[in-house]
């Protein structure tokens, strides 16, 4: 955590993306505050620098792939240990969420929706470890996830109803012509509002808890008093536990809403 000599705590700076990683124990001067600079470069005029959040995303992805592959390596009929735990989540998502929402066609989208859930979950959870950062607390990351969700939604609509059929389904059929002048802009806004809401919801939820934890801990430094510490630590710890819960809930909500939007686009009549 960045705190300078005046007792100022850079809360937002902790949330933001950086071109460096915070790493402890790398030099003698700054034992708990070392930095590793990350490469910065442009590709076709776009800044494709490997930032802290990109690294965190990769770490989360690597952890996700490693845990999943090691958990499901042995294919026997009886699940044990980690595989049992993960299968419980996967079967719950499939039987209690995705298939009730999407019907049997939900099975086609299972790999995408499971990846969405676990990718967001791992990013959320990774951000709770000290010296890491929450990639899903960056609006660019959530915007990208929302764009993917939007693309899959539109793709599902086009695949099920044809290219023109999909756009015709934007407005309910049987409306009188004059109403279309109002309805078409409204429906277009509605279509775009869904991924926008997905993006903002995940982003805001992920940074909110972090900011609150930082503010509680920062109070100790800002007020320069040890007597604040017990209350701050207790509240920060409680918020930390809440963050674990929110990490699950937000991954779940993002997945459920994506399933819902895909289903609505694929079957507009209900």
């Amino acid at each position, binding site marked *: 955590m960045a705190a300078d000599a005046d007792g100022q705590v850079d809360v*937002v700076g902790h*949330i*933001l*993306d*950086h071109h460096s990683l915070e790493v402890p124990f790398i030099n003698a001067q700054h034992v708990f505050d070392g930095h590793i600079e990350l490469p910065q470069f442009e590709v076709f005029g*776009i*800044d*494709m*620098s*490997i*930032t802290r*959040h*990109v690294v965190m*995303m*990769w770490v989360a*992805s690597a952890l*996700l*792939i490693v845990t*999943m*592959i090691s958990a*499901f390596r042995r*294919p026997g*009929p009886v699940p044990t240990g980690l595989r049992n735990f993960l*299968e419980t989540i*996967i*079967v719950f998502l*499939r039987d209690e969420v995705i298939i009730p929402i999407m019907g049997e066609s939900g*099975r086609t989208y*299972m*790999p*995408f929706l*499971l*990846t969405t859930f*676990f*990718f967001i979950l791992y990013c959320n959870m990774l951000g709770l470890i000290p010296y890491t950062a929450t*990639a899903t607390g*960056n*609006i*660019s*990351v959530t*915007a*990208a*996830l929302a*764009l*993917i969700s939007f693309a899959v939604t539109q793709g599902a609509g086009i695949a099920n109803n044809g290219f023109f059929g999909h756009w015709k389904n934007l407005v309910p059929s049987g409306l009188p012509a004059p109403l279309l002048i109002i309805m078409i802009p409204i429906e277009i806004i509605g279509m775009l509002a869904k991924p926008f809401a997905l993006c903002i919801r995940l982003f805001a939820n992920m*940074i909110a808890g972090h900011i609150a934890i930082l503010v509680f801990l920062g109070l100790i430094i800002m007020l320069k008093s040890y007597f604040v510490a017990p209350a701050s630590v207790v509240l920060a710890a409680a918020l930390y536990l809440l963050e674990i819960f929110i990490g699950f809930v937000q991954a779940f909500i993002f997945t459920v809403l994506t399933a819902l939007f895909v289903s609505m686009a694929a079957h507009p009549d209900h």
Partner: protein
Amino acid sequence: MDLLSPHPGLILWTIITFVVVLVVLKAKVWGPLLAALDERERSIRDALESADRARAEALAQQADHEKRLVEAESQARQIVSDARAAAEKVGQQVMAAAKEEAERTAQRGRESIQAEKRAALVELRREVADMAIGAAGAILNAELDAERNRKLADDFIADLPGARN
């Protein structure tokens, strides 16, 4: 870097990362896992169905066995009662035959007694006649010849009461 301004590079990195993770997990984990889950559910459903079938079969067999048992019992009872009836009948027949046999034996006895009695009577009569002749001969030895005497004695005997029996 601002809190709320999207950053195209990071958006692209996120999409690339997500797609790579999706492709890897779909190939290595989700595909086999979802297939395995379906397969397991199918095998559980099959096992439950076959268990149900086996139970129904067992129940049917049990009912069949019970029915057969009841049948066998009633058959056994029938056989016993038949046998008892037959034995009673045989006993009665034996009794009747024995009674008849006894009756016949008694009859035969009576008849043989009768015949014996008759033969004895004939014998007795002859003995008596001979004795009478002997006695008469001893008495009337000189004057009467044997022929005339016999005739006299026969007449005498014929005149005796019950001689014809």
